[in-house]
């Protein structure tokens, strides 16, 4: 390492004010109206009467610097040189001159950035790392998201859903992608295969044992060496032992499958926030385009689009029609795996005579 000339300043999270559009800065905390003029465009008005139009576009998140520079150039050309990114890796351009909205949309579109993701569209998928960078992934992330967004392009650039749709994907069961209206998550189906030669050197055995949610791991001597042993009857194939102990290989090209979950919601609007629920599993990890996953996601979205009432999020829709109807309308099979057997699972059993026929 070359000699350092700089001494670290622990500056933390930077002040956004120097980077914020002046109209947003001026009216900070003083907005009082918004509307959705068209897909991909937001309109906000401040108490002062100041107005701002936001044009929102999708990106690939994992961007080469050429793409970033292109986005910066567009900001200079159309939007006073300011942008922001949303919590879902969409980029937002703020313009104070309504006349610039359409040219900006055109420029973004011409440059391959889909304009949309606002209001009742399907926004960008919450993104994780996958084979590109993570040390434990069962599948890719950027690739899955690209394939999905190609499929869902129409619903990104249009606002035809009953309410916002938030998707996430996660390349292992840890689920860095989070709770979502539809979540696509790796689901392993076989216990880890242990490379006993490596365990002693690589893994801190007590802490691995402690990580297992079902206490299926115990220390053992294998071929005379200290290693670990998994009770395969107990193991639920969650993969939690793999990060602290890479010799406990959980990933498998065949048996690491993909599961689909629906109805997660973080917002407090109407119903309380709620977790997503398992609806489909056993889908193959079919790189490079995961067509089986896309097909199920589209089926669910179509049913929701056709049947949901205005302002019903995915979970609100299902709450209204009931789970039997969800499985009927999507044609997805209902299996014993849908019935929770984890701690507290009793809370999800139907403890009433409320039944739809």
């Amino acid at each position, binding site marked *: 390492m070359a000699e350092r000339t700089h001494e670290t300043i622990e500056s933390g999270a930077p002040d956004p004010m120097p980077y914020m559009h002046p109209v947003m800065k001026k009216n900070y905390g003083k907005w009082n109206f918004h509307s959705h003029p068209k897909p991909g465009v937001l309109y906000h008005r401040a108490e002062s009467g100041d107005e701002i139009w936001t044009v929102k576009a999708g990106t690939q998140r994992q961007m080469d610097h050429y793409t970033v520079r292109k986005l910066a150039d567009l900001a200079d050309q159309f939007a006073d040189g300011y942008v922001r990114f949303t919590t879902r890796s969409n980029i937002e351009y703020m313009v104070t001159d309504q006349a610039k909205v359409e040219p900006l949309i055109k420029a973004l579109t011409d440059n391959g950035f889909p304009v949309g993701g606002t209001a009742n569209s399907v926004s960008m998928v919450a993104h994780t790392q996958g084979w590109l960078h993570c040390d434990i992934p069962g599948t890719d992330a950027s690739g899955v998201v690209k394939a999905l967004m190609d499929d869902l392009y129409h619903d990104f650039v249009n606002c035809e859903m009953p309410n916002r749709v938030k998707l996430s994907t996660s390349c292992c069961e840890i689920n860095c992608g989070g709770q979502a209206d539809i979540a696509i998550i790796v689901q392993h*189906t076989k216990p880890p295969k242990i490379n006993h030669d490596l365990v002693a050197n690589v893994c801190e055995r007590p802490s691995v044992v402690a990580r297992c949610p079902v206490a299926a791991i115990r220390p053992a001597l294998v071929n005379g060496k200290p290693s670990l042993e998994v009770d395969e009857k107990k193991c639920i194939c969650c993969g939690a032992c793999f990060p602290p102990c890479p010799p406990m290989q959980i990933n498998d090209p065949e048996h690491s499958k993909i599961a689909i979950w629906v109805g997660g919601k973080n917002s407090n609007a109407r119903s309380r926030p709620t977790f997503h629920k*398992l609806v489909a599993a056993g889908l193959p990890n079919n790189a490079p385009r995961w067509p089986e996953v896309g097909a199920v996601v589209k089926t669910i979205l179509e049913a929701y689009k056709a049947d949901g009432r205005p302002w019903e999020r995915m979970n609100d829709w*299902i709450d209204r029609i009931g789970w039997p109807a969800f499985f009927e309308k999507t044609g997805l*099979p209902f299996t014993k795996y849908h019935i*929770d057997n984890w701690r507290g699972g009793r809370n*999800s059993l139907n403890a009433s005579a409320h039944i*739809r026929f």
Partner: protein
Amino acid sequence: MAKQMINTPNLDELESGPWPSFVTGLKRLAKDNDMMVDLMGQLETSYETKFGYWKGGTVGVVGYGGGVIPRFTELKDENGKPKFPEAAEFHTLRIQPPAGMHYTSDLLRQMCDAWLETGGSGLIAFHGQSGDIMFQGIKTEDVQRSFDKFNEMGFDLGGAGPALRTSMSCVGAARCEMSCYDEARALRTVINNNLDDMHRPSLPYKFKFKFSGCPNDCVNAIQRSDMATIGTWRDNIRVNEGQVREYYNAKGMNTLVNDVISKCPSKAITLESAAKVDKSNAGLSVADLGDGNAMCIDNKNCVRCMHCLNVIPGGLLPGKDKGVTILVGGKGVLKIGATMGTVVIPFMKMESDEDFEKLNDLARNILDFFAENALEHERTGEMIERIGLVNFLEGLDIEVDPNMIVHPRTNPYVRTDGWDEEAEKWFERKQAAAA
């Protein structure tokens, strides 16, 4: 038979006030019953010291292992002698009533007579919380003859201990338009075919059946029984338009909206312009209100909660395709906290002889599964909590159904390598049902 009444200043306080006083009753009995004199003595002591003084024991009748609740006093003097010797034994006979708790006046009097004739105290409770008539206060030596007397009259002991317990069914078909099946028949089918488990306790713990004619659940089956049989229906709510209009004209639009429409838990009821009602929708129950409005019930979305039927009795009635929902696992607070029963059979017809036979088989299978799989002192609710609902269903050969859950699992903690086979089962069932 002329023991002096004991001073009971505490109990006396319970003679005032408008509600019928059990103390007055006890005193009436004590006048010519020494056991009751002493019983009052012990009870008064409890009121003073705030302690109970009974302990259990073993008292029974020939051939039976349960049905009598033995009570021996623990209130003794320094020499270990009972302070109130005449009530030193004060057992209870649990007798099963006619299903639905119907009595003639003659039967009531005969029961009083039988009780007194055979040494009973004269105290009777109609009924215990499980549904027994409780004949309270008899000595060990009199138990057998008292039972024999009741048995001769056609009555039998109920349950106690780790056994099948006495059951209850609501008044139901006898006097209620909500009733969706013959509750009394169901009760008698299930109970009377399993009396061995009632009279000779050898289950892991108690097991209760309860029978309600509809989801109003007037016998609290869902919470207080291991297997709850609750009436319901699959087709459309029946509408008696005249009756609905009578309600509407009397109460007005606001009340209809506030009390009926907006209280439907699944928003299955809507108010429509009568002209625009979708007549092609076979799943719609419609009541034309006569003023251009119509109340419509989307039966696909109705969860059979009973509310609207309750508010407009006779105007809205259960459908004609009736049957029952069966829920398993309700119980009290020991040792995991109280549980409700959960759905294991969303719907089962309950009309023909075969239907009742099927109910009987199911009940027997559940009892057998419980007997084989529960730990000692474990109720069905706890057993299911421990082994998981799916294992319970598989043990009984019952297929999974989304009506068994409020929502699918929210955690990935499950091994799903049999997914494709399980999915196949579902598709086959769907196909078979469609064919």
